[in-house]
């Protein structure tokens, strides 16, 4: 038995058999095999194979002609079919629709989370402005009071000292009113908003979290 090397194998694969090769194929006689197959049977079988191959070839040729005919027809209509992708979508409309719906659901969830964040920050900002205005007003009042108190205290009066007194009172009150109210709220808010923003790419859980809290 001859060994079949890789080289043999591949070179044979590259040369397709023709019907004629099959028809004229000579088998070497196996010296020790007295009782070989009937030559007649082998021959008639090979003829059948050859006929079928010939038929296959003709069918292929017919099909190729038909394709050319169709290509020409399309070309005459102004379409280029050499590139099958162009204008001939290979995806099913069902698949497109399913993916579209999934995308829409995701978009809607993200939009809702963003809207929630927008309102949250918007309200916080209003609150912040209000607090500051209030603080400013209360500080102005405190400053006026401080000057009044200073004047009625009987201490030697100087414009500079008076100004200083009022500024200290202003700043102290302003800081008191604002600091307490604002810090905690704002830091918490910044965290919240950051969580919202990173939701889509991280995980589904993160995506639904703020919404459930919201709803």
């Amino acid at each position, binding site marked *: 038995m001859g060994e079949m090397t890789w080289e043999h194998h591949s070179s044979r694969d590259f040369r397709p058999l023709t019907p004629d090769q099959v028809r004229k194929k000579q088998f070497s006689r196996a010296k020790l095999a007295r009782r070989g197959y009937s030559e007649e049977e082998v021959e008639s079988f090979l003829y059948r194979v050859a006929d079928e191959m010939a038929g296959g070839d003709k069918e292929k040729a017919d099909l190729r002609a038909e394709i050319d005919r169709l290509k020409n027809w399309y070309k005459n209509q*102004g*379409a280029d079919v050499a590139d099958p*992708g162009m*204008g001939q979508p290979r995806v099913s409309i069902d698949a497109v629709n399913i993916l579209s719906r999934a995308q829409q659901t*995701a978009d809607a969830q993200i*939009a809702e989370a963003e809207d929630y964040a927008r309102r949250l920050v918007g309200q916080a900002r209003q609150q912040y402005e209000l607090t500051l205005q209030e603080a400013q007003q209360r500080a102005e009042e405190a400053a006026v009071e401080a000057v009044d108190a200073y004047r009625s205290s009987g201490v030697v009066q100087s414009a500079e000292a008076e100004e200083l007194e009022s500024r200290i009172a202003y700043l102290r009150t302003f800081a008191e009113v604002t600091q307490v109210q604002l810090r905690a709220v704002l830091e918490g808010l910044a965290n919240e908003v*950051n969580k919202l923003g990173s939701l889509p790419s991280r995980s589904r859980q993160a995506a639904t979290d703020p919404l459930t809290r919201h709803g």
Partner: protein
Amino acid sequence: MDAQALKDSWHLVARSGDQVPLFFYSTLFLMHPETRDMFPVSMAAQRDRLVSALGRIVSNVDRVDEAVPLIQQLGRDHRKFAVVAGHYPAVGHALLATLQHFLGDRWTPALANDWKQAYELIAKVMIDAADAASATSPPWWEGEIIGHERLTLDIAVIRARLNYPYPFRPGQSASFSFALRPRLWRFYSFANAPRRDNTIDLHVRVVDGGTVSTALVHGVQRGDILRVGAPVGDRLTLNPNLPRDLLLIAGGTGLAPLKALVEQVAYEGPTRRVHFFVGARTSRELYDIEALTKLETEYPWLSVVPVVSHDVLYRGERGQVADVALRAWRGQEVFVCGSGEMVGATVTRLVEAGVPNEQIHFDESTTGEGKEP
């Protein structure tokens, strides 16, 4: 190529509104799954940036000559999305499939062929420009954040050092993205003139609930990396052949690109007189005023005037910044930058007051729309 047929068919398709980008992207991602990762997670149609532009640009192929510089710029800029030539056929397939779907019977082989050719032409201009650019610049720059300072509750000044030299002109902007908000790109203006150490400054203000600005102000830290696209925009850049005095009018973070102009005048000369009017609603929002006042003491040709509109207790100039600035108008070139609203109102005031149109330069920079320059 029947350009009118392209336009008519695009017009028809566009009538399906949000359904069009939805179909386009679903088809693209199904046929070419490798492109999914290039786009943001949310593809909400109202913020779609590709499809409507694609249809508009391709269907106007008959006027391609006028648009070539823009298309080239688009091609160069697409490198920042990591787009390579091999991606173009994918987008072409999805575009044609989308047109076919929405046009139904009207999608003839002849029309298909015209769209295909028009698309390939535009794509070629983009790809060639990208190729040419790749000889001289990276697809994007990376900037390490080396300074992050929150100057008010909602404004941060960010300094980043870029990894390669970055040639830009004061007054320009670029789009930025970073790992905290993957694949989202937003424009921010440079607040400085180019420096030898490749550092850039950005002034970022939070838009209520804004995805990217919130992260830039509250989320990023020193050491984080910004991805930076090529510089764009020429509306706020100085014309070196017109060395006139300048009147700068800023609202909010709109002062960023105008501050860059001040730095340019300081570096380059010839010295022009510069009047810089900085508007804000309350004195607390005059976030950069210390730095500007310092510049003012350094440069005799510069005067900085803060103007506050909504703060009765404010002791400096009060009112609309445009009105205060107009008092200083002596025929200078006027530059306006701020929110859309502020810019609109200011430009109207200037025109009413007789400032010639061609002397007014403006850009709406701090609006939430993220509009292209």
